[in-house]
């Protein structure tokens, strides 16, 4: 099977050689499309951030307002990632191991934050937990609003990473451990958690990357108060409007670098896990 597959992948053998104007043209078109829309623009951000040299870059990201925004962003991202790791695992557990009426709907609701536009997510949170809140909770324009908004948009990541792993997990080991007298907590900690860990970490990496860059959900509920509730993406937006493009680019590069780091770290963890499984 594997030999048949690898030989059939050789160029021209699949019978699709001539489509999209033949191989060279296809490759050229794909690369050009990706370059014009994604790669060249992102390169321009990195280039612009370095235009005033290393000291200019450093000065831009250590400017008091920018620094405060970055600190809040990273702090909130860590808090959200930690909460999401626990809550996401718990929700996945309830979805897989529990069964109750309405579970199907409960399961679909998890994807709602993916489908709902971020600005709508922000507005809905503000409607319920803002000034004039019908339930009497007002968290708007405070740092905790950043955390709640980020929890909303990143909800599916850990749940959807852990759920399939939990579904595949055999209960035999757990039953064996229970019959040998292990407590429920011990079973969870020693048997279930190690298996789920790669998935939890993978989902957490996505959560962290998303939290660093989120804009739409955060912009309305935080009220954009410098040094207090202003996150990095909102700060960048302000710098663009104010015309300070080098400063906007420098902070953008910091966000870009750490998002990529989180995602690459996640790939390494998952790659290691897959190899281990084989």
């Amino acid at each position, binding site marked *: 099977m594997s030999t048949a597959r690898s030989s059939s992948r050789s160029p021209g053998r699949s019978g699709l050689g001539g489509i999209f104007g033949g191989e060279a043209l296809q490759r050229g078109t794909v690369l050009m499309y990706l370059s014009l829309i994604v790669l060249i623009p992102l390169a321009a*951000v990195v280039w612009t951030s370095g235009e005033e040299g290393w000291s200019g870059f450093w000065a831009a990201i250590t400017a008091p307002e920018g620094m405060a925004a970055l600190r809040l962003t990273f702090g909130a991202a860590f808090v959200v990632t930690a909460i999401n790791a626990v809550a996401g695992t718990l929700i996945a557990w309830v979805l897989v191991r529990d069964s109750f009426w309405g579970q199907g709907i409960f399961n679909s609701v998890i994807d709602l934050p993916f*489908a709902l536009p971020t600005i709508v997510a922000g*507005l809905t949170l503000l409607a319920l937990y803002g000034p004039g809140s019908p339930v009497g909770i007002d968290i708007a324009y405070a740092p905790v609003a950043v955390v709640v908004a980020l929890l909303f948009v990143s909800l599916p990541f850990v749940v959807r990473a852990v759920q399939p792993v939990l579904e595949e997990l055999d209960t035999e080991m757990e039953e064996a451990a229970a019959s040998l007298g292990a407590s429920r907590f011990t079973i969870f900690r020693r048997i279930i958690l190690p298996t789920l860990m790669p998935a939890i970490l993978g989902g957490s990496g996505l959560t962290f990357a998303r939290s660093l860059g989120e804009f739409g959900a955060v912009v309305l509920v935080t009220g954009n108060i410098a040094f207090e509730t202003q996150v990095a993406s909102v700060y960048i937006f302000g710098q663009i409007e104010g015309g300070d493009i080098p400063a906007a680019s420098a902070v953008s590069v910091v966000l870009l670098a750490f998002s990529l780091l989180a995602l690459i770290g996640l790939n390494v963890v998952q790659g290691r896990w897959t190899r281990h499984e084989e």
Partner: protein
Amino acid sequence: MKSRLALRAVALGYLGFLILLPVGGVFWITFRDGFMPFWESITTPEALNAFYLTVFAAVVAVVANTVFGVAAAIMLVRRRFPGKQLLSALIDLPLAVSPVVVGLALILVYGTYGWFGGWLAEQGILIIFSFPGIILATVFVSLPFVVREVVPVLREVGTEQEQAASTLGASSWQTFWRVTLPSIRPGVTYGIVLTTAKALGEFGAVSVVSGRIIGRTETLTLHVEDRFQAFDLAGAYAASVVLAVLALGTLFAMNLLKPKEEKA
């Protein structure tokens, strides 16, 4: 049993307070005074314009990214070339970039003082603060979805049928239309649904490049923010409800079309 109920209560409570109550609340506030105020808010010329612009940008993004996505997926699965891993990683890049950074990146290249923008302006082509900029931003943020959904399906179906077709004398295009495309259709469809959802809902990137000329370069998400800033809460909620209904439709389609191996 008790702990099971407790876990269930915690999970449902978390989801209820974080997602369901806020979303339900917006529907309740919007329709509190009946259907007419909602209808009036979403049929203003600005709201209708924003709606058409959003749909148009989404259609362009879906068509462009579907053609690109299928071509790129075929390249990644069926061809062999150096740097394949790198290309695959680069295609995922838009998922890791903050929407505001996407907007900044496009301004730096296609803005009037940007790398290509000056030359384009001389040709009379204005991209940033204009319609093409909104489309570029929408295409950027929704670029990876079709590729990501088609790659695993294409890998799964293998090449036997394509080879058989080509042995029997089918041209490459015939093989593509009659054999490859039908077999990857579920992946393509699911990718299109995800692309549509992302394209309809994008706010940050579009917000930076649009220049917000009300009634001209305002998408539906921008219209929500504009109404909110203008203290027209009814207008903001009404437009939000339209977007939320589109999102629920997408969600429904997602559940219907989710590829089997992902359904688990």
